[in-house]
């Protein structure tokens, strides 16, 4: 376990060594919320009370999704920059290696999402320790599930990076649009809502909103949401552990 933590710490030091990306991420969040969020809230008006708050949580879900995507990309970059064979030669089990990647992903996500979350809760006068912790836990669980999905998909990049990038772009477009990230299930048309319940983001977003006290009539059942988010995290991480162990090879050489 010590080696797994050591490996995770090494990657995290690299991550924290370049704070530019975090600052950019926070700035983008603030900009999006200040301009688009506030304007769209006026348009939505009375159809959905407190849409600005709804939207800001949705934006956080996007940050979590993109951070988890980063972990998959980071994994692929390791392979293409020649670092993956080195990591795979270290005395850490393949599942330990994956855990180290997941820890890296969690830190990456928390650093990107925690300050905006705290800021939003503070501005809305909704900042409590328990609320913030439960919301972070929900976002953390969702992040793990997306990380597992992205690492599972990364083996595609070992065959063709272009296909991997295309799959990633397509997947993110579909998962975000067909979800409750920006619009609640309750007001969606019938032809749209059945698809949205297939997106893991729907469950992560609604669970986080419920934890933070958003009107439950616009949200999925929180128990169902918690169960689905946990199940996705466990199953995708198990799948990615299997893929790392059985399929991925570090380098091809003749």
């Amino acid at each position: 376990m010590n080696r797994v933590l050591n490996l995770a710490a090494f990657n995290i030091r690299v991550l924290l060594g370049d704070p530019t990306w975090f600052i950019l991420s926070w700035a983008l969040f603030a900009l999006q919320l200040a301009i688009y969020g506030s304007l769209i809230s006026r348009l939505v008006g009375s159809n959905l009370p407190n849409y600005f708050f709804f939207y800001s949580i949705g934006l956080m879900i996007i940050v979590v999704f993109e951070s988890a995507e980063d972990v998959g990309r980071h994994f692929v970059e390791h392979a293409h920059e020649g670092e993956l064979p080195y990591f795979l030669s270290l005395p850490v089990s393949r599942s330990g290696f994956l855990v180290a990647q997941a820890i890296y992903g969690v830190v990456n996500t928390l650093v990107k999402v925690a300050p905006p979350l705290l800021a939003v809760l503070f501005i809305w006068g909704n900042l409590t320790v328990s609320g913030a912790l439960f919301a972070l836990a929900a976002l953390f669980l969702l992040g793990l599930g997306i990380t597992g999905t992205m690492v599972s998909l990364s083996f595609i990049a070992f065959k063709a990076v272009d296909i991997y990038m295309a799959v990633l772009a397509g997947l993110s477009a579909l998962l975000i649009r067909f979800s409750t990230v920006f619009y609640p299930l309750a007001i969606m048309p019938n032809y749209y809502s059945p698809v949205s319940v297939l997106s893991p983001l729907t469950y992560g977003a609604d669970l986080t909103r419920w934890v933070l006290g958003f009107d439950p009539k616009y949200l999925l059942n929180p128990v169902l949401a918690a169960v689905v988010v946990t199940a996705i995290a466990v199953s995708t991480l198990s799948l990615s552990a299997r893929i790392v162990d059985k399929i991925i090879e570090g380098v091809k050489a003749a």
Partner: protein
Amino acid sequence: METLSLSKRYGKTDALRELNFTVDEGEIMVILGPNGSGKTTLLMILCTILKPTSGTAKVMGIDVVEEGTKVREVMGIAFQEARGFWRHKPSSILRFHASMFDIDSMKRQDLIEQTMKDLELWESRDKKFMHLSGGQAKRLETAKVLVQRPKLAIFDEPTSQVDLRGKRKIWDKIRELRDQGSTVIVATNEVREAEYLADRVTILHQGHLVVRDSIPKLKDAIAGGDVVEVGFEGPVTDNLVAELKGLGGALALSPEGNELRAKVSRAEDWVPKMTSASYNLGAKISSIKITEPSLDDVFIHFTGKALIDQQ
């Protein structure tokens, strides 16, 4: 270390074919072969990065597929391409590597400093990896294994991109590692590197193990491989040539004036007999020059192709 019928296939290409290969404890085994012969594939399987298509490989009795983590605890590899981290400094890369292999934290810094000095990396300790020259990056790759001092040390073309002076240093450190008790495998396509390092050589060609033995035995296996040039004080007579032919062991004798050129399998056996026969016939010898076959000649002998042409 041993492999049994080890094969690796990439699509329709066989990188390794039914390889049976052993390395004895405490020896330096050099794997010699041109690019594409399967050297790197073999090493990648041994260090558990690649999985074999069929067959088995064991390191110190531990199966590389079944117990990969245990294998990785006892082995260290210096890759063909230096595996660094672009924004890290050499010293931090070595510190991380040492910590992953549980090198005593009290000794770690001294060991790293000494290894970096030995490999002339100390002056570059504060440069980022991306600013190192190709040779420096390659020496850093070697330094990882030297700091680690694993029971099985693997070097994949350890001196490619390294200048002559640096090559000598790396070779000496690899031999030192062997003397300290490590078993060493070196893959190379450089004949000089193989000659300098090898206790035994394995020749790989197109995924096949062609031959495996010590360098002297491989050279002796070439019939007529040793060339002996003998200078006499007088002309070489037909009588002397006939007498030398009668000794056996020489595949060809070519007299020319005062000189005789002989192709023999084992010069160390033939020369004493030749000097004795010449003395008995009153032919005084003024010089003897023995030229052994090179490993390139050995490669040609066993594969029918020159190593250099295969690159």
